[in-house]
């Protein structure tokens, strides 16, 4: 497996929507390289025939009755929003102008 480098970290930070300074990228790249190196052995631990476990105690078909239960009022739902307008979340522009 390839090692993780500074360019990778910059790309991942963009994907994860976290702005990072040059200094932060430098530091994060070094720290993550150590961590990635230490977890490498995991890819060699299990053979093809071992099934994956996603949940430790799997449950299937967890349904409830199709009736309306408790719902938030618009006021409650918006109570922690940084900005709201006429019962809606207010956000800056979704798209670039150009």
């Amino acid at each position, binding site marked *: 497996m390839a090692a993780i480098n500074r360019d990778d970290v910059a790309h991942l930070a963009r*994907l*994860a929507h976290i702005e990072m300074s040059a200094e932060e990228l430098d530091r994060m790249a070094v720290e*993550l390289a150590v961590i*990635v190196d230490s977890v*490498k052995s995991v890819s060699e631990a299990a053979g093809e025939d071992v099934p994956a476990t996603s*949940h*430790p105690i799997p449950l299937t078909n967890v349904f409830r009755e199709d009736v309306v239960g408790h719902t938030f009022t618009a006021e*409650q739902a918006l109570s922690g929003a940084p900005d709201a307008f006429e019962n809606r*979340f207010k956000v800056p522009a979704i798209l670039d102008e150009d």
Partner: protein
Amino acid sequence: MTELKNELIRHSAADLAAKLAAREVTAVEVTQAHLDRIADVDGQVNAFLHVNSEEALAVAAEVDAARAAGGSAAEELHALAGVPIAVKDLIVTIGQPTTAGSKILEGWHSPYDATVVKKLRAAKMPILGKTNLDEFAMGSSTEHSAYGPTRNPWDLDRIPGGSGGGSAAAVAAFEAPLALGTDTGGSIRQPGAVTGTVGVKPTYGAVSRYGAIAMASSLDQIGPVSRTVLDSALLQEVIGGHDPFDSTSLTDPFNNLVAAARVGNVAGMKIGIIKELHGEGYQTGVENRFNESLQLLKDAGAEIVEVSCPNLKYALGAYYLIMPSEVSSNLAKFDGVRFGLRVLPKDGPMTIERVMGATRAAGFGDEVKRRIILGTYALSAGYYDAYYGSAQKVRTLIQRDFDAAFAQADVLISPTAPTTAFKLGEKLDDPLAMYLNDVATIPANMAGIPGLSLPGGLADEDGLPVGIQLLAPAREDARLYRVGAVLESILEEKWGGPILAKAPDLKNAVLGAVSNTAGGSN
């Protein structure tokens, strides 16, 4: 009165419940005694991010009124009614801020209660406040809290463990008889170990996680924090049970826990030492206390066997792929739109993407960023199979190892953490060294099985608490309480009282070099 208060805060929850029922004390007295203790010592310990005095006293007064009224009002009270409790600040509460130890949620109030909080309210247990934690429960020392570290009541220059260092320290410092924690890789058990308290991670699904801010959904579990094994059993019975609001919640009843804690013998039980979870890498004093507990259990009639779980050597690595993968997804919701912080970029076009980038850069601390980036990496195209896919297979191997081990033993035993409490700052610049602290606790989360940590004594070399961990098969939480209570009673007989009687007096303690920052109080 001061004498009485000092005595009151030292009682277990079970004893307080008995005194309340016998009307020897009032719930208001008990709650006020703990609030006074918080006022006295929390400036040094920093276990609480928010103190909920008014509501706690109001609930206590309701309990006292019901008892005074007698009749059905008194009879309907829960056994723990009036016994106060602290809640980890990862669990949402109406009427108090919930910060998750992060700047991104500073001052945020949840519009709903977590299911466990509803259950505390139904039992009329006064909620004393919200306890400190590593940001979003990511850490083993509480040093990653955006509101300053919590300090270990045994030595204020040392870590109280993490992420639930606030809950463990609050209980160890007699600021609360009980607390709630969350455990994703050891965040209840490891703080229990290093503070000389009891902490339990129940079976995955035994306690609803609805209202616990998710870190890694396939690993997270809410559980009890206390000073005695019986108290944890009492608390797990309050908070456990099926909840339709959590689709991973089990329908099995878990109502035999208190009874198990009262069985009082381990004769004929098989207790398995996990070969891979002691010895090399474990501090001498930890190993010594562990061996001593084994001998005591043997003397009490248990059969000690050795079991091997060879795939546990991959557990830490697999955990550091699965957990950050789930973190990167769960924390995507902190985007500056629906709740919490919003930070605008300093210049350039004001688009929502750039607002998210600036908000998350300012709102998250280093460890949270590290894990989000690591998880984004593990899930990215080209690496998914090698990392996340392989880690999920390791999870199967770990479950198989435990299945084989439990075919030979009723419960398994190991030290909870490889070392006693380390110094604040000691591992802050070395993430990997910090991660290694959870090597013995992570396997239980990977397999979904329950685990309990209880005090095993003090290490010879530093006089600090050592934790003993018990593990049981899924849904067999009762076995932990049975064995844990027996070991606790044998050890306390040997020590001549509870381990916390040996902890230093906080009133005479002085603060060390690390500055103490005030939490998100509002």
